[in-house]
């Protein structure tokens, strides 16, 4: 009896969480020109409209570029920071770790305003570079957390063995450490990409005039009307932000199985 109640309750929670998303996906295939029920037929016309909407395609390209650059920069910085924090005895290591993780703990709005005020103080205007920097600050903690956890599990002995066999520290990093770290690097990069791709709060504060990312584009379109193409855009976003991490996880798992870790 008790279990049945729990089961029903669980199902309700899941419905509450996923039903709105399902509705968006479903309505994106609605032939009706209003983005609401009842559905009048199945159609992909809103995806075509989306494809032909220059503003949205531009926002899409911006988001992809921003996401990829954020992922690359965050991953490189994250790996370097993790190596320093795990492999070397740095004074104030705990403090540095806390500072690097802090952006997760600080409310995003506060972080966004802070960065903006700071740049105002330095008399530097908004730019794409600033937006990118903001995204890197915001995604770096995730990369560091994932990479650090993995790095701790890679025994120092393995690297020492490589060194003793004649590989320089740099060669050891690329031949041993990095391949063993790869699942975490991939996961960290994916995290960074999806978080950047999704982000709206920080982006609204940091983006220079005339540049829109997909979330900010949707936001501004919503202020005018609820167009069915937003549903289509939402569906594309869901596929990207859910699908990519899943593929990434699958790749990471197969890499990890192969290397026996």
């Amino acid at each position, binding site marked *: 009896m008790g279990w049945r109640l729990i089961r029903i309750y669980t199902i309700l929670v899941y419905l509450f969480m996923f039903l709105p998303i399902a509705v968006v996906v479903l309505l994106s295939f609605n032939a009706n020109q209003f983005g609401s029920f009842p559905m009048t037929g199945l159609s992909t016309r809103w995806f075509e409209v989306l494809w032909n909407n220059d503003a949205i395609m531009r926002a899409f390209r911006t988001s992809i570029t921003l996401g990829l650059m954020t992922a690359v920069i965050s991953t490189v910085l994250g790996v370097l920071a993790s190596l320093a924090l795990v492999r070397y005895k740095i004074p104030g290591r705990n403090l540095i770790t806390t500072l690097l993780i802090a952006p997760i703990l600080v409310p995003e709005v506060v972080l966004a305003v802070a960065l903006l005020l700071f740049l105002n103080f330095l008399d530097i205007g908004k730019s794409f570079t600033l937006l990118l920097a903001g995204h890197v600050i915001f995604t770096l903690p995730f990369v560091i957390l994932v990479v650090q956890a993995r790095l701790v599990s890679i025994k120092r*002995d393995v690297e*020492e*063995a490589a*060194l003793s*066999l*004649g*590989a320089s*520290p740099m060669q050891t990093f690329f031949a041993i450490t990095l391949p063993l770290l790869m699942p975490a690097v991939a996961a960290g990069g994916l995290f960074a990409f999806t978080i950047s791709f999704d982000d709206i709060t920080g982006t609204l504060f940091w983006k220079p005039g005339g540049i829109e990312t997909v979330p900010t584009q949707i936001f501004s379109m919503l202020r005018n009307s609820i167009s069915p193409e937003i549903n289509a855009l939402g569906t594309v976003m869901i596929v990207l932000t859910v699908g990519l991490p899943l593929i990434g996880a699958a790749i990471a798992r197969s890499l990890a199985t192969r290397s026996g870790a």
Partner: protein
Amino acid sequence: MSAVSLSNIVKRFGDYTAVHQMSLEIEEGSFVTLLGPSGCGKTTTLRMIAGLLDPTEGEIAIKGKRVNDVPIHKRNLGLVFQNYALFPHKTVAENVAFGLNYRNVPKDEARRKVAAALELVQLPDLGARYPKELSGGQQQRIALARAIVIEPDVLLLDEPLSALDANLREDMRVELKRIQQSIGVTTVFVTHDQTEALAMSDQIIVMSEGRVEQVGAPEEVYNTPATEFVAKFLGASNLLSARCADMAGGDIALELPGFPKIAIPRDRAPRVSGPGPVRLVIRAEKLHLKAEGTPADGLLSVDAVVENVDYQGQSARYFVRVGDHQMQAINMIEDHPFATGAKVSLQFRARDCAALPVESPS
């Protein structure tokens, strides 16, 4: 010219001194063991030879060349770890070939060398496997093959047998010694296990608290311990307070209450300098329990009472009381072990005794 030479090596970690003023010459082709309990500085010493730690003071030379400033990857050393440290993402063959990649060895020759190394460790067919598919013993053999394929100047082994289970450890001990002898590589072996040290070494360096206690061949270290620590650490020993009464002539006369006068050869007490208090050392297996009244037959003999018996199948360890002294004896069991409470005659040869100067308690 020594293969490895340490002169006045000191290693400090902050206020803690891990190795005190250590000097050591390791002969080309020899198998040398650093033996001691954990924290005695043996691994620290090995890591300094490897170049994984820098000595605070002193010089390290390999084949006559000072290497203090030579980083580990340019020292041409073979290193084997307790937990194997194979590269999990590389096959066995790739693991073994790893060092050759950095030595400009042509591909064909590299393949031949890898095959020869796998042959030497008796695992010629496992080249395509991944380390996780191998047992612990196999992994350790591969680690050894990987270390020797580069023809290192010195092979450094850091407790390589400690992670293996008991039976396998004995097999690997024999195997390791065979491989070392067949290629004749200078080997420095670190262990806390006296059996391994005694079985494998040409020379044992017993260490305690960052200091060298004794350097010598296994038999020498075992039979003539230079310090109380060595006497206690290797095997089961009895240490008794005695007095050196007389050093005239070739023998040293020792007196201790309840025992007949013991005259031991000079070379059994090289560090005793004159009459006065000394420590008498006798190994547990050199004390023979005989039924009460058995004629001494040229041996020294004292009456004793068995207080406790630790039965071990083929042998037994007896805790016996001789006057005020509690002693232990390990004897093979011929018929039945002596029972607790039995009155026995404890017999031993004078030349199985050794004497040490009394160490000031530190």
